[in-house]
C-alpha cells in the first residue's frame, strides 16, 4: 500500500457565477521516502492540490469528488479532530514566503513549543529541548539563543530554516513544500534545497515539491507531475519527463529554459497564456497554444496514453512517436 494515494480527485470552488473546477481528475501515488515534483505555470492548481491533500482548501473551495488515502485512511472524510491530528503531525507543509509564515508576535520557540504541545502530551522543557535539537538539525548556529528571538531578528534564509525545522518537528511522513525557495536569493536557494533533500533522506520523509523551476525538479525529485489548467497532463519518472517530454506543453516548458535559447536571440516561449478556470476551452485545454493541434484536440478531452513509464494526456502522442521513429526506420 502506498503511503499516499490520490484517486480521481476533483476540487471545485462554488462561486455566485457557478461552480469552477480547480482540479480535475487527479491521480497519483507517493511511497515512503519518495520525492515528487508538481510543476506548472501559476494558476495551474499546484498549490490547491497541496492544500487539498491536507483538506485545507479555503472557502468556497471543496473536494467535490475522489479520495485521498493516507495510510489507508481517506483524508477527505475524516472529522475535523482527526484531520488536526494528521496536519502538522503526519503531514506538514512549508510555504513560499518565510517572512509571512512565521507569526511576527511570537518567538520562534513559542511557535515550535506550541506545535509540539498541540500534538503530544509534553511539558515545556522537553518540548524546548526537542525544538533546539530540530533547529540544530537545520544548521542554525547557536540555536539556544535563536530560539528566544522573534522572526524579524532572523535573515530570510535563516527564517526558512526555522520553517523547515517546524515542518520536521513532529517527524512527519510527508512534507508538502509549496515553492519553498522562491522568496530566497539564488545562493541560499541551493543551500536550502540541499538541506531539505538531505533531511528528507535521513529521516525517510516523503516530499511533495511544488515549484515552477524545472531545474530543481530534475535535481531533487524522482517523480514529476506536470499540471495545466487543473489537470495533470503528464506524469512519470522525472528523468524520463525531463529527457524525453511527450506532451507539447512539457516540451514547451523545457524549451523555455534559458539554457535552451540560442545566445543573442530571444528566449523560447509558449505563445499565449494559460486560460482562466472559467474559460477553459473544450477538448484539450492546451489546444489554442499547441503547435500540433488537430481537429480532435478541440472536440474531445484526451485520455491518458501510456508512453514508456509516463502517462500523457495528448491525442497526438502516438502520432508524434511514429513521426520521430519513422526516419530512423528508413535509415536502418
Amino acid at each position, binding site marked *: 500500500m502506498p503511503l499516499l494515494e490520490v484517486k480521481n480527485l476533483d476540487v471545485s470552488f462554488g462561486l455566485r457565477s457557478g461552480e469552477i473546477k480547480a482540479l480535475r481528475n487527479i491521480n497519483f501515488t507517493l511511497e515512503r521516502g519518495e520525492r515528487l515534483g508538481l510543476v506548472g505555470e501559476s494558476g495551474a492548481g499546484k498549490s490547491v492540490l497541496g492544500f487539498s491533500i*491536507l483538506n*485545507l482548501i479555503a*472557502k468556497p473551495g471543496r473536494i467535490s469528488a475522489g479520495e485521498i488515502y493516507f495510510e489507508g485512511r481517506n483524508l477527505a472524510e475524516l472529522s475535523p479532530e482527526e*484531520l*488536526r*491530528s*494528521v*496536519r*502538522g*503531525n503526519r503531514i*506538514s*507543509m512549508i*510555504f*513560499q*514566503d518565510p517572512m*509571512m*509564515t*512565521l*507569526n*511576527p*508576535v*511570537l518567538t520562534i520557540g513559542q511557535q515550535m513549543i*506550541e*506545535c509540539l504541545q*498541540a*500534538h503530544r502530551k509534553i511539558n515545556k522543557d522537553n518540548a524546548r529541548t526537542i525544538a533546539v535539537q530540530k533547529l540544530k538539525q537545520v544548521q542554525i548556529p547557536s540555536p539556544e*539563543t535563536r530560539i*528566544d528571538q522573534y522572526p524579524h531578528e532572523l535573515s530570510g534564509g535563516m527564517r526558512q530554516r526555522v*520553517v523547515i525545522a*517546524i515542518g520536521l518537528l513532529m517527524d512527519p511522513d510527508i512534507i508538502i513544500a509549496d515553492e519553498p525557495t522562491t522568496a530566497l536569493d539564488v545562493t541560499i536557494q541551493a543551500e536550502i534545497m540541499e538541506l531539505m533533500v538531505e533531511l528528507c533522506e535521513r529521516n525517510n520523509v516523503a516530499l511533495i515539491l511544488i515549484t515552477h523551476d524545472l531545474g530543481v525538479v530534475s535535481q531533487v525529485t524522482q517523480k514529476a507531475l506536470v499540471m495545466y489548467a487543473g489537470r495533470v497532463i503528464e506524469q512519470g519518472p522525472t528523468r524520463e519527463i525531463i529527457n524525453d517530454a511527450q506532451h507539447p506543453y512539457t516540451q514547451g516548458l523545457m524549451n523555455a529554459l534559458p539554457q535552451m535559447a540560442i545566445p543573442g536571440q530571444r528566449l523560447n516561449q509558449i505563445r499565449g497564456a494559460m486560460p482562466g478556470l472559467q474559460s477553459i476551452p473544450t477538448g484539450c485545454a492546451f489546444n489554442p497554444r499547441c503547435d500540433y493541434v488537430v481537429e480532435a484536440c478541440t472536440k474531445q478531452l484526451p485520455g491518458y496514453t501510456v508512453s514508456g513509464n509516463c502517462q500523457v494526456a495528448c491525442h497526438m502522442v502516438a502520432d508524434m512517436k511514429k513521426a520521430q521513429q519513422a526516419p530512423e526506420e528508413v535509415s536502418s
Partner: protein
Amino acid sequence: MTMSIQNKPTPVAPEKAPNAWQRFKETHVWHSFLKDRVAQLSFTIFMGYVLMALFAPMIAPFDPYDATQMDIMNSELPPSWNEDEGDPQFWLGTDAQGRDLWSTILYGTRISLTIGICAVLLQATIGIIIGLIAGYRGGRVDSILMRFADVQLSFSTMMVAIVVLAIFQASFGTALYQDLAMIMLVLVIGIAEWPQYARTIRASVLAEKRKEYVDAARVMGLGQIRIMFRHILPNTLSPILVISTVQVANAIISEASLSFLGLGMPVSQPSLGSLISSGFEYIFSGAWWITVIPGLVLIVLVLVMNLLGDWLRDVLNPKLYKG
C-alpha cells in the same frame, strides 16, 4: 599605538538575554515617548491621577464616607486661599454637607477611574470575543453578530443607560440601587459600548486572517480557538490599545453625565460627576468651587487620556500622517 598594544583585549561580556525592561528601552514606543513632550506631560499627569486614586485613603485628610467627621457648620466654606472665609483645614473648601472637597475629589477620582477602567475591560472582553469570532468565522456568523452590533450602536449609550438605570431604581428601590450603583454603572456602560471594540477587531482580523502565518498555524494542526486567541489576537493589539485609551475617557464622561442626571453614583459616595451635580444647585449662591474644581479635575483627566490615545495611535500606526 603603544597604548593599544598594551591594552589587553577586553573580555567579552557573557551574553545575557535582555530582560523585559531592557528590551522595552529599545522599542520604537519608548523612543518616540522620549521625543514627545505632550505625551510625557500627559503620562505624568495621568500617573498622578492613578496614584491619587490608589492612595486616596492615605492622602485624604478626611474620610468623606464617614458621617461623624462631617460638620454641617463647615458647609460651603470657600477654598482656603480666600482668607476672609476660608478655613486652612479645608484647602479646596467644603461642599454643602460640610465634607472636605479635596478628600471628596480624591475619592471621587478613585470611583470615576475604577468605573471607567472596569467598564472598558467589560467592553473589551465582550467586543474582542465577538469581533474575533465574527472576523475569523465569517459568512453567516459574521453577518448575525455584526447586525447585533449595529442594533446596539443604534441605541445611544446614554439612552440605554438612562432607561436601564431608571427602571432598576424604580423597581428595586433607591436603597439597593445605592449599594449596587457602581456595578450597575460598569455593566451598563460596558454593555452599551462593546460594538466599538467588536467592529475594530473584526476589521483587523479580516486583514490578519489572510496572512500566511494563519495558514501555517492551521497546517500545524492547531485548533480554531487557539489560532484566534493566540495567533491573531496579539497581532490586532495596537488598535485595541488605541481605542482603549479613548474608551476609558468616554466611559468616565458617560459616568459623569449619568451621575449629573442623578442616575449615577449616590451623593453619599460621590464620583466626580455626582460632585459636579451636587454643587450645581449652589453655584448661583456663590459656592462655585463645589462644581468648578471637580469639573476641572474631570476635564484634565479626560483631556490627558485623549492626548495619550492620540500619541499612541501615531506611534503604533506609522503609515498615518500627522495632519
